[in-house]
């Protein structure tokens, strides 16, 4: 599954490169930034000039510096949210798919309720209850994503488990753990990986939306979603303070999405 043939899929290549570029920007950006993200070096909504190619923001921070510093948070937050959901959902989903009736029903029921629980209520409740720390937002988004993963993992596991090679392993008397890890998990990994890519895309959108609503990274830290929020009022005066982070968020989401798309296409092609 993980091999060089991946790179022959143009979508994987394109998505991977775009995502990689954004990730690099987010990781290396803080070292490249001319100013600290909290330094107020220019006028309020100062227009782009030679020393500040993207101008200044609502408090006179250098937009470029904040842009270079602000990628890390959405990067780790979306990754963490998708990863937590992936792991939790996979564990629960496999557990449901491979266990006896009772537990399966319980988990499926839980996931059903969970899914019927509108995201908005979930987010607002958790944030109002526990505050708006970034890790809480991550957890919230992860919680919102988990039932989808459960369903997918359960469905894939059930489909794989009904295949003869799993029955063969059962007949050999292999332990459940071994069957799970060696026979089933590798075969549900591709759909889960695709789902992971999609969750990244959704996560980026959701997290930047939450940031826009004021939930997420707290000022004065730099964060792309927060930058949109902070500078929205000056959109017509100094559009770059909003457009630049919006563009990067869009490109990041685009990259992850294309990547997921590519994997799906690749695995479909491989199966054919």
């Amino acid at each position, binding site marked *: 599954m993980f091999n060089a043939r991946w790179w022959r899929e143009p979508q994987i290549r394109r998505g991977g490169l775009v995502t990689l570029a954004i990730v690099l920007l987010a990781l290396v950006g803080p070292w490249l930034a001319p100013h600290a993200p909290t330094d107020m070096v220019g006028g309020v909504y100062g227009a782009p000039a030679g020393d500040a190619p993207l101008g200044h923001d609502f408090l006179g921070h250098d937009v470029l510096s904040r842009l270079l510093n602000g990628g890390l948070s959405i990067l780790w937050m979306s990754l963490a949210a998708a990863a937590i959901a992936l792991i939790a959902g996979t564990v629960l989903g496999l557990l449901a798919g491979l266990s006896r009736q009772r537990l399966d029903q319980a988990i499926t029921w839980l996931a059903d309720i969970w899914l019927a629980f509108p995201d908005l209520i979930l987010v607002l409740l958790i944030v109002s209850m526990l505050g708006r720390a970034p890790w809480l937002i991550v957890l919230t988004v992860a919680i919102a994503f988990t039932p989808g993963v459960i369903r997918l993992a359960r469905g894939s596991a059930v489909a794989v488990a009904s295949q003869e090679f799993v029955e063969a392993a059962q007949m050999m008397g292999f332990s459940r753990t071994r069957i799970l890890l060696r026979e089933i998990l590798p075969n549900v990994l591709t759909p889960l990986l695709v789902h992971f890519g999609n969750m990244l895309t959704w996560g980026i959108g959701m997290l930047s939306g939450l940031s826009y609503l*004021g939930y997420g990274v707290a000022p*004065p830290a730099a964060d792309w979603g927060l930058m949109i929020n902070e500078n*929205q009022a000056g959109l017509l005066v100094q559009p770059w303070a909003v457009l630049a982070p919006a563009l990067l968020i869009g490109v990041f989401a685009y990259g992850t999405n294309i990547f997921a798309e590519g994997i799906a296409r690749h695995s479909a092609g491989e199966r054919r």
Partner: protein
Amino acid sequence: MPNEFSRRVFLGNSLAVGGGLLLGSSLLTGCGGAEPAAGAAIARPTQPVRGGRLRVGIIDGDQAGNLDAHKPSGGGIIRGWALYSKFWEWNDDVSTRLGLAEFAEPNADASAWTIRIKPGLEFHHGKSITADDMLFSILRLTDPKLASPFAGLVGAIDRQALRKLDERTIEIRFKQGRSFFPLDETLIAFGGIVPTDYDPVSNPVGAGPYRLKSFVPGQRALFTRFENYFKPNQPYADELEIIEFKDQVSRVAALRAGQIDVASGVQAEHSALIKADPRLQLVVSPSTSFSGFNLNTAKAPFQDERVRQAFRLLADRQELIGRGLNGFGRIANDLYSPQDPTYNHAIAQRGYDLDQARSLLRQAGASDLRVELTTTANEVNAALVFAQQAKKAGVEVKVTPVDSSVFNGPQKEQWLMSPGSTPARGFLATGLHNDAPLAIYNRSNFRDERFSELFTQALGQPDLERRKQLVHEAQTIQHQRGGLLIWGFTDVLDAASSKVGGLHGEQTTFASWRFDSLWLNHA
């Protein structure tokens, strides 16, 4: 007191409650520059025009609000300006003048007030206003069962001693021989006069310029002109519509698209946009509403007077106004109510002195200080600017934005450092909100024996000159060792269509709420 205060509650609170729904900086901070009240250069009608529907867009937070004259919440404060009239009204310079009353004076030690209303006044439903209605209104206002948020401010009124002197006259006395001079400012905000058959839901009737037609909490209220308003020929518009918005950007969009006529309190960031639009006018009110920080004197390190002084010295007030208020404001000297005739102008403006701040901190053994500044999301700008300034003096200020429900929760007076602001009004009224004895929201926990003594005396001193002496000394104490870092006075910006007349800048914060004097050139 509450008038402005109401504005603050309304703007600040609701914005904050909205979490980040509302963007960026608060209204409070979005106030005018040093320039005088200025509108667009467009020729506007100078003669009032009657008729039309005046549509006012306000920013409402999450609170649905009500129509209660005596415990207004949410947009209820603004709607109250349309529905109810009071004994007094505000002047443009934040002093008071008589409204429904034709006579209102305290006795010599301010322990009793006599109030007489004008003859021939009527409520919206045609009933004449009598002393019974006046008594009913005061009694309702002070009823503990009303559970009013402002109960603390009217707590001094003695309900048992309330007396009707004749059909138009009542007497108000205060508990246990207490004296209370600033009654006018207190009763302006939520002392609406209502009839004895008043009910805030089923019969929201008053004597204000407009009568209610329909009300959908959280969305809009529609009013029609009250023909028997106590000011002849006013109000001008046939109908008044107050529309509630959750978001500044969408309201500006609505204003630009002609969907509303007045946007009450706009963000400073939008000023350029509004000025550039020939169809709009921007009205700047250079108010004496202050912006500052509360330093909790009950907690370390602010127990130490030197640390408080150091913080006041390390604030670059000009930069705070430039960045925190977008330039719409004037610097302050850690004292409030400069418009008050008792204000002590002799106290020198505190400057920006990093060296002295550092040395004071060193003396206090508080170099390498770390302080948490708790704020609501909408008051965060100035806090961030201050944090950057503090860094230069080696003080790390960590800005923590919290939900307003948390900010105003049980911990509300425990924050170590928090932003503070009070709308423009007299010294005594402002003090009762902030740092006076019996103040209802004393976040700096400032308690000074001499100051309390002076303030209490001033409360019972109707004589201006004598009161001035008391206040001057009290302000010296505040300036020396008070818990408030007041760095600026903010301008309030109102935007309106150029068709709107009667809107002008003033020192108060509610130029756009004077619905009885606004008109619409609807032709």
